[in-house]
């Protein structure tokens, strides 16, 4: 049973390898039909999911570890390739593989006809393998391997349409900003290793020995590990890569930048819960960053035109919610939101992708309109997803958001609670702004007259995810509404506080959330449901330009680093190092030139030097002989 763990991780890697070889064959030798690529690509995630589900059914209560072999052993640094299946990693692996498989199916339809079809799926499978490695790893180093791997695949897939240089720039930006976060992560991890690494570096040993770390260093480690999460999960100040990452194909945005990779940061904080529960001040800091990111991203999203950028900012905003939860110690709520968010965010992106496909790659919402007639399935599934993200009962988002807001309120963090409540209102406003503009408003003159008919590969996964967006919330339904709150029991090992407030307060908060969400919908309805997109919509201003954050970063940081590297290159490297090395080389040459004076071809001079030598010799001889 435990050996299944390595199959779950290895299968997508094997699939990626096979697809790469097949793609090379396709390029160099003979054309291969798309169907073969699809077969391999869709089969491996399915089997991984089925295996994960099997473990869930049969052994979900046990904590299973499987060690494959020893990877590194250098003095105290003893790392095995070993996998862990406990409630947390099993939970993550389940929805990652399931949603991953669904998005693979969607991508088979979306990328049809693309000439790099095989390459795309090779990268896609590789990503899934890396993500599963991340969640199923039993020690932080192997998890970091997966962490970096998903960053790599993100870069590869964002720059997929590499013939347009801007996409490559976006890919670079994603990778480099991630790297900044990873630097912090490595600092935290190394410090942790210095203190307790000699006693074993897998999660169980770390949890057992965490008390040996001096308390001053605990905050340090916790902070720097969180810096890694800031980079990976796009919080302030390292969120700038996520909107630009929308340059990749839509299935990439759906899988990587909505459902899975960006939640790796939340997973990491949850995995290190034994550390974060000892440092509540760092936890508060995490929650503050989460709240700020939510608010900031939501404000920017209210004025964006590109459909995918709106969804990207929405992702940043929802990730903020998750970090508020895990920062304040409510791990179950945070992971619950990860789960529900995966469903409806993936659905939103896939729906957006469907619309983009239908309109021949149009992405500006003010050039759309009346898409309701184009495809009923897309319309209804998109509506379900938008309701879910806005937190309307009984859709999934309602339960998870409510848990988080309740936790913030109950633990006394009223400012954070207020900020997140306001952001919820903004969320429903901008999401329904998107919905009404794309599907309801009178169509724009720029819009294609006859939208494309979508293949079932594209539409069926939408339906499955829509069902998920409806029912996924019920696993966390709180007691007062009659649910059993199964997810809290599943994550009981975290030791979350179970705060009991009176039913009236809890109910009252729930009503307040719903009212705020409905208010957002109403304002959006009033402003956008009836507009005629034939009129050219002009948007401008500070918020539209994302508060010029990218430009500020560029001027402050990027340009200065470029100047610094130019300085090091031109002055330090060329003049200093090159100069020194060349000087040493030339000095030998000049020395040789000096000696070469003695070889001037003048025979008399040679005779003279012979005489000179002989006379010296004779002087010496006479000294000796006396």
């Amino acid at each position: 049973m435990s050996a299944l763990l390595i199959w779950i991780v290895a299968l997508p890697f094997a699939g990626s390898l096979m697809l790469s070889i097949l793609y090379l064959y396709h390029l160099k030798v003979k054309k291969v039909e798309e169907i073969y690529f699809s077969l391999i690509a869709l089969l491996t995630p399915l089997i991984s999911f089925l295996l994960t589900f099997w473990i869930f059914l049969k052994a979900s209560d046990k904590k299973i570890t499987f060690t494959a072999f020893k990877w590194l052993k250098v003095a105290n640094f003893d790392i095995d390739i070993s996998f862990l299946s406990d409630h947390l990693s099993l939970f993550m692996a389940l929805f990652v593989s399931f949603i991953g498989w669904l998005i693979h199916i969607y991508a088979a339809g979306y990328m049809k006809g693309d000439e790099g079809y095989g390459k795309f799926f090779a990268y896609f499978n590789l990503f899934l393998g890396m993500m599963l490695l991340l969640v199923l790893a039993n020690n932080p180093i192997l998890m970091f391997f997966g962490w970096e791997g998903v960053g790599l695949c993100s870069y590869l897939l964002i720059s997929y349409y590499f013939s347009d240089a801007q996409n490559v720039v976006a890919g670079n930006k994603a990778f480099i900003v991630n790297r900044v976060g990873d630097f912090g992560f490595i600092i935290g991890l190394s410090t942790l290793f210095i203190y307790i690494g000699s006693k074993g570096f897998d999660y169980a040993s770390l949890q057992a020995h965490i008390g040996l770390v001096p308390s001053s260093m605990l905050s340090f480690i916790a902070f720097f590990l969180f810096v890694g999460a800031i980079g990976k999960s796009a919080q302030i100040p390292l969120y700038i890569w996520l909107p630009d990452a929308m340059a990749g194909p839509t299935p990439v945005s759906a899988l990587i930048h909505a459902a899975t990779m960006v939640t790796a940061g939340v997973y990491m904080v949850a995995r290190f819960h034994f550390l974060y529960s000892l440092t509540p001040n760092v936890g508060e800091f995490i929650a503050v960053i989460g709240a700020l990111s939510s608010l900031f991203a939501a404000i920017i999203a209210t004025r964006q035109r590109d459909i995918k950028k709106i969804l990207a900012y929405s992702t940043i905003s929802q990730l903020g919610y998750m970090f508020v939860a895990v920062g304040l110690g409510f791990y179950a709520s945070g992971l619950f939101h990860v789960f529900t968010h995966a469903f409806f965010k993936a659905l939103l992106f896939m729906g957006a992708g469907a619309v983009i496909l239908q309109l021949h790659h149009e992405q500006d919402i003010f050039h759309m309109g009346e898409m309701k007639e184009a495809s009923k399935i897309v319309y209804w599934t998109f509506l379900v997803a938008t309701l879910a993200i806005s937190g309307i009962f009984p859709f999934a988002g309602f339960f998870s958001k409510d848990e988080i807001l309740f936790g913030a309120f109950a633990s006394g963090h009223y400012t954070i609670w207020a900020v997140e409540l306001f952001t919820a209102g903004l969320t429903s406003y901008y999401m329904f702004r998107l919905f009404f503009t794309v599907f309801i408003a009178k169509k724009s003159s720029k819009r294609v007259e006859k939208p494309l008919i979508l293949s079932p590969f594209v539409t069926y996964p939408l339906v499955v995810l829509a069902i998920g967006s409806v029912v996924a919330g019920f696993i966390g339904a709180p007691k007062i509404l009659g649910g059993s709150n199964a997810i809290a029991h599943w994550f009981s090992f975290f030791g979350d506080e179970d705060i009991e407030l009176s039913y009236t307060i809890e109910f009252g908060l729930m009503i307040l959330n719903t009212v705020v969400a409905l208010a957002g919908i109403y304002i959006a309805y009033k402003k956008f449901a009836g507009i005629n997109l034939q009129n050219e919509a002009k948007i401008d201003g500070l918020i539209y330009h994302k508060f010029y954050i990218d430009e500020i970063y560029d001027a402050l940081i990027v340009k200065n680093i470029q100047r610094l590297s130019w300085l090091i290159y031109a002055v330090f490297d060329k003049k200093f190092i090159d100069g020194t090395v060349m000087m040493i080389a030339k000095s030998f040459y000049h020395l040789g030139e000096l000696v070469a004076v003695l070889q001037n071809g003048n025979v008399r001079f040679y005779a003279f030097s012979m005489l000179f030598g002989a006379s010296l010799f004779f002087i010496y001889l006479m000294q000796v002989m006396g």
Partner: protein
Amino acid sequence: MTDLIFIILSLSAILSALYMVWVREPIISALSFIVTLLSLAGLFALLSASFIFLVQIIVYAGAIITLLLLIIMFLNIDDESLPKEPKKLLYMVLSAILVAPLDMALIKAVGTLPKKDMSIISNFGSVKSLGLTLFNGWLLPFELVSILLIVSLIGAIVFAKRKI
């Protein structure tokens, strides 16, 4: 008597050698060299080497220097195209200083030889005795020297025929 002749001959040898090294024109230098050679021949005679005395005059002064004078006159160089030697004295003094240790060492070494009588004896370097020694003990070097002379003869002819 022999001492006086010895002193005269040595002085003439050394002084003409010095003059030969010093003077600028090659013909005067060659003539001075002849004087040196003749003085040396006299010294050979004083050392009871009668045959060498003859050979020196006939071969060395008579053939070699004559040939040299021939070539000098054949090339017909005028005064301006002689090489300019501005620092001649400086170089000579410098070389003399450098040569001095060599000389001193040699003189010291020579001074350790025990004194012997060096007066002239008859029949010592006569043709007969020299010939016997040559063909009895030194046959191989004799033959080799003759080959050497042939080689140089051929060489001289080759060089003369060479097109420049």
